[in-house]
């Protein structure tokens, strides 16, 4: 996993609540057996005017000029500003894969759906929960200033606005550590092989019906 320490980048606002994982990456793109290449189909149904299918040349497709990511002022955005319950719906990790492949490393929202939130951390994306008033203020500032950028510092757990104002945010210490170091969860867990084996032996004795063969 790619480390995340700090980032200063353009912010793109997605002003709707309950953005679901079907909207983030529609199902026809889940047929891929790869982890990469989902970026061109991020928000496919909002972003393009035609019906997207795997294998299309996305550079030739008609763009929806009304969709925020198609507006020139948000090109190169790496921070997504979102509304409540972002990432609800399915567990598809293709959603964070698509966001990451597009270039997003930070998502700011008043709340996230649990599975999506968890999946972000496994892929080097930092989802940050801010209170609703702060989110509202950021939406207003992004709208008012073209080229609006934020600096997000995970080490300091701090967001700095262009005017120099700062916001602090909470993040789970274990997840912060993994992101800062780019750590592989499986490698960490396998440091506890003996504990897993011991648990398993005890469980096998107590509840043998859970073990076949």
């Amino acid at each position: 996993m790619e480390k995340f320490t700090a980032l200063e980048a353009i912010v793109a606002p997605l002003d709707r609540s309950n953005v679901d994982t079907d909207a983030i990456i529609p199902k026809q793109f889940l047929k891929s057996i790869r982890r990469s290449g989902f970026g061109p189909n991020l928000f496919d149904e909002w972003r393009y005017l035609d019906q997207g299918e795997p294998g299309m040349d996305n550079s030739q497709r008609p763009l929806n000029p009304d969709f925020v990511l198609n507006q020139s002022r948000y090109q190169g955005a790496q921070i997504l500003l979102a509304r409540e319950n972002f990432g609800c719906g399915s567990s598809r990790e293709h959603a964070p894969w698509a966001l990451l492949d597009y270039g997003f490393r930070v998502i700011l929202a008043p709340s996230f759906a649990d599975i999506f939130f968890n999946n972000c951390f496994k892929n080097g994306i930092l989802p940050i929960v801010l209170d609703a008033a702060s989110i509202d203020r950021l939406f207003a500032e992004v709208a008012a200033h073209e080229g609006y950028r934020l600096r997000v510092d995970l080490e300091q757990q701090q967001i700095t606005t262009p005017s120099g104002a700062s916001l602090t945010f909470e993040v789970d210490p274990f997840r912060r550590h993994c992101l800062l170091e780019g750590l592989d969860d499986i490698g960490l867990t396998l440091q506890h092989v003996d504990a897993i084996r011991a648990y398993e032996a005890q469980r096998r004795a107590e509840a043998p019906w859970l073990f076949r063969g």
Partner: protein
Amino acid sequence: MAGKTLYDKLWEAHVVRQEADGTALLYIDRHLVHEVTSPQAFEGLRLAGRRPWRTDSVVAVPDHNVPTLGRERGIEDPIARIQVETLESNCRDFGITVFGMDDPRQGIVHVMGPEQGATLPGMTVVCGDSHTSTHGAFAALAHGIGTSEVEHVLATQCLIQKKMRNMRITVEGELPHGVTAKDVALFIIGRIGTAGGTGCAIEFAGSAIRSLSMEGRMTLCNMAIEAGARAGMVAVDQTTIDYFAGRPFAPQGALWDQAVAAWRELHSDANAHFDREEVFDAAEIAPMVTWGTSPEMVVAVDAAVPDPAEEADAVRREGMVKALAYMGLTAGTPITAIPVDKVFIGSCTNGRIEDMRAAAAQIRGRRVAANVRQALVVPGSGLVKQQAEAEGLDRLFVEAGFEWREPGCSMCLAMNADRLEPGERCAATSNRNFEGRQGKDGRTHLVSPAMAAAAAIAGHFVDIRKEGK
């Protein structure tokens, strides 16, 4: 000292080790696998030179991509075919049990698991699919995971987790005629919202829940994720235990007795503490129909499409306006005046035998209405299909103008050929009415199987409480 909730008990029984900050390694008893969220996990294992920790804990089945017609021709979509073949070759290479497309046990992973007894009370159950919450109906701790976690569970038999909060939703009383577990689920989501259970494990309790069959409890727990809760669960009672007798993966003989004794402890203590509680009266629940693009956008069948002008919150109001535009609906339209173009009966929410029976019972010698272009019935598994056919339900459906298909996820998410065309309106027994879920620009109304079948016959939504008593 406060007692323990069912979730507390399930959690504590599976903690391998715990850090001071509460981050725990949680042992996983059952890992269900399907073709869409597993290929990258198996590839990750290969790249790291790892093997699955315990192959006997894994059961795999292709369900999302499989065709529901013309199976003898295989899968025509080459990309979908590669994904299903990849699942089969991964299972072969790693020694994992898989029920392939030609196996009568094949079906939607959340129908197949309990049906085989692969899900048992007291287990931790995971799958790379958010509707894994279904299995909580059996007092299991069951939730969806992402593909990175699929790989993690394959490699270590554990998940890195923090404990969720405890929430209890109690529904007391007798469910009125025509009201099913699906309506209870939609009613609850309408009340608490799609983020109402975020961060929580929900226990469903109360006399209305206890009176549900296992199929009904699965429908309810299935929809816990649509209320934002990764896990939903129901305590063990005799209904739970009776379900497992004779199932292939369930224990037998002396082990059965030992297991049943342990299962009987799987309930919340009387003095258990819940962080959140909601109590509803069963008598208030009506057959429900969603009108928007989120499961919380739902009303009773005898209500009308709501008016955004009456919503005080600006973000919510804007969401309602967008939803009505997408759905092609006008505020104030009675739900029963909304015509449907297609009907879909099936999915991990409502693809079990009881659902097939409830839908068939609405036919009563009538036919699908002329304005309904397609009414699909997709059993949740090969065994559900066999049972339905043994009861003659397939003939009832076909004679009435429904199509009787092979098992799979089908039009719930339209990864295979079953889908809505732009602008088509569907009465669906599935779980999500998101934009584009059943096909780009398709319009989904979530309902129970009986309500879907009744809509197919009338050509529009009908209040099933008013007919066929």
